[in-house]
C-alpha cells in the first residue's frame, strides 16, 4: 500500500513538472506577450512603432513618450486623471457604504420590503439601463454633465451586484452577534455601522476592488452621461486619442500604458489581497 502510493507520487511529480512548464509557457504566450508588445511599442520612436512588431526598441523612449502624452493638448491627460480619480474614489466609497447597509437589512428583515428589494436586485443585475431617459432625468435634476451626477449613476448601476455579495456574506455572520448588541441597546443604524460593518472587512475589500476596477475603466457610462472635454475621464481621453495619434502609435501605446499603470500598481501591492479577497466574497449560487 505504501509502496504503491510512493510510486504513484513520483509519477505524479514527474507529470506535474510538465504541467507546470506547459501552463507557464501558455500563460506567457497568451497573457504576457500582449503586454510586452504594448511596452516595447510605447518605448519606440514614431516611425519604428509604425511597424507594429515585437522587436525591442532601438532606443528606449518610454518616459519621453509618456511625458509627451501627459503634456499634450494642454495637459489634458492630467485633467482627466483627476476626473477619473474623483469619480472612482467617491463612487466606490458611497457604493460600499450604501450597499452594505442594504444587504444587511435585506438579510435580517424578512418582510415584504425585503422580498421586493430582492426581486429588484435580481432584475437590476440583468436588464440594461434605459440610457436616454436617464439623461432626461439627470437634466431635470441638473446633474447631467456633472461629476456628482456621474458618481450617482455609478453607484446606482453598481448597487445590485454589491448588495448581492454583501447579503450573501452577511448570511455567514451569526445572528447572535446582533442579538447581543441589541440587548445592550445598540439598534438601527448604530447596530449596522458599529457592530456589523467592521465584520464585513474582507467582503468590503473585495467589492471595493471590483468596483474600483469597473468604475475606473468604465467607458460607456461617462460616454453618455458625462460628455464634454473638461469632464473627460482617462478612458474617454484614450478613445479620443485613437484618432489624434493615428500616425503616432508609440504615443497611443504610451497613453494605454499610462492608464494601465494605476491598476498595475494596485495589482503589485495588493495581489494577494485581491485574489484571496475575490475568492472570499464570491457568489454562492
Amino acid at each position, binding site marked *: 500500500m505504501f509502496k504503491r502510493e510512493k510510486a504513484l507520487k513520483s509519477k505524479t511529480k514527474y507529470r506535474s513538472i510538465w504541467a507546470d512548464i506547459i501552463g507557464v509557457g501558455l500563460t506567457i504566450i497568451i497573457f504576457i506577450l500582449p503586454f510586452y508588445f504594448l511596452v516595447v511599442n510605447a518605448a519606440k520612436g514614431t516611425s519604428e512603432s509604425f511597424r507594429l512588431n515585437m522587436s525591442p526598441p532601438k532606443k528606449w523612449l518610454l518616459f519621453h513618450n509618456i511625458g509627451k502624452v501627459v503634456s499634450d493638448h494642454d495637459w489634458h491627460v492630467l485633467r482627466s486623471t483627476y476626473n477619473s480619480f474623483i469619480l472612482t474614489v467617491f463612487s466606490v466609497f458611497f457604493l460600499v457604504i450604501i450597499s452594505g447597509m442594504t444587504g444587511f*437589512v435585506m438579510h435580517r428583515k424578512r418582510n415584504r420590503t425585503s422580498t421586493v428589494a430582492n426581486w429588484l436586485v435580481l432584475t437590476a443585475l440583468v*436588464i440594461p439601463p434605459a440610457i436616454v431617459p436617464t439623461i432626461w432625468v439627470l437634466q431635470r435634476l441638473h446633474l447631467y454633465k456633472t461629476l456628482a451626477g456621474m458618481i450617482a449613476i455609478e453607484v446606482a448601476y453598481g448597487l445590485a451586484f454589491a448588495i448581492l455579495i454583501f447579503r450573501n456574506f452577511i448570511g455567514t455572520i451569526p445572528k447572535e452577534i446582533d442579538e447581543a448588541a441589541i440587548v445592550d441597546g445598540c439598534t438601527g443604524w448604530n447596530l449596522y455601522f458599529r457592530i456589523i460593518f467592521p465584520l464585513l472587512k474582507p467582503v468590503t475589500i473585495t467589492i471595493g476592488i471590483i468596483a474600483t476596477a469597473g468604475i475606473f475603466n468604465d467607458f460607456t457610462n461617462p460616454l453618455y452621461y458625462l460628455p464634454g472635454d473638461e469632464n473627460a475621464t482617462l478612458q474617454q481621453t484614450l478613445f479620443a486619442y485613437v484618432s489624434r495619434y493615428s500616425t503616432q*502609435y508609440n504615443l497611443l501605446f504610451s497613453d494605454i500604458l499610462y492608464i*494601465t499603470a494605476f491598476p498595475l500598481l494596485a495589482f503589485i501591492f495588493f495581489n494577494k489581497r485581491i485574489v484571496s479577497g475575490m475568492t472570499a466574497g*464570491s457568489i454562492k*449560487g
Partner: protein
Amino acid sequence: MKKKGIKSPYASSLFWPAGIIYIILFFIPTVLSLFFSLTRWTLQEWEFIGIENFKLYFSEENLRIGFRNTIIYAVVSSGLKVIFALYLANFLSSKLRSTGFIRSVLFFPTLVSTIGVGITFSMLMNPYEGVINNTIKSVAAVFGKTTDGPGWLVDPNLLPILSIAIVDVWKGVGIATLIYIAGMAAIPRDYYEASSIDGASPRQQFYKVTIPLVRPAMFSVIILSFVGGLRSFDLIWAMTGGGPGFISDVLASINYKQYTSGYYGLSTAGNVILFVLVSVLVFPLSRYLNKKEVVM
C-alpha cells in the same frame, strides 16, 4: 420623535439611500423608456408617434445583423468562458507550483482598461502588419506555403465579431475562473477521499465529483457572462466601431449610433428591444438552471 421599535431593531431606513438612488436613476428611467420609445423626442419636447420607432428600427437593414451579432457574441464569449474557466480552475486548484503565478497573471486583464485592451488587440490583429498574421505568415513559410492570414477585424463575414468575442474571453476568463475556484474550494474534501479509495482516477473525479458539485458556481458564470455579452459595447466600439460597415454592430452599438445622430426616441426604442431580448433569454435560462440545481 421616533418610537423605539421593540419588535424590530433592524431599521427599515437603512433601505432608503439605496432605494432612492435606485428608484430615481434606474426604475423611473426604465418605466419612462416604455413611453419615450413611442415618441419622436428631442429631450425637450416629444410627439407621440405610436409604434413608428419600432417599425423603423425593424426595417433598418443593419438591424438583422445587429441581432445576429448580439446573440453570437454573447453565446460564443460566455460559452468559451464557461468551458475554459472550468478547466483552468481545476488546474489552478491543484497543488502545482506554478498556480500562484498563473492565477495572478490570468486575473490581471480584468483590472485593465477595456478600451486599452481593445486598441492593443486591434493592432495585434492588423491584417497586414499585425503580429498575429505575421506569425502565421512566417509559420506558413516554414512549411513552404504563402498565406495572407485571416482578416480578423476586416473580414466581410462573421469573423470580426468572433475575433472581438475571443478578446472578450481573454479579458474576462480570470473573473470566471475565480468564481469557479471559490466554488471548488467549497466542495468538501471527503468526496475526493472517498472516491479515490474507491479507485477513481483524477479524471473521473473531475467529471463525477467536481463538475456536479461546482454547478452553482457554473450557473453564476453562465448568467453573469451571458448578460455581460448581450449588453457589451465598449470592447466592440474600441476594436471596430461596429464596422467595417455594419458587419460587427450589436444592439448596444446601434443604439449609440442612433443616440449620437439625435434620434432619441429611436435609440430608446432600441433600448427597449435590448431590454426585451435580454429578459426573454436570461430569465427563462436562470429559472431553468435553478430548477436543475434543485433536482440535483
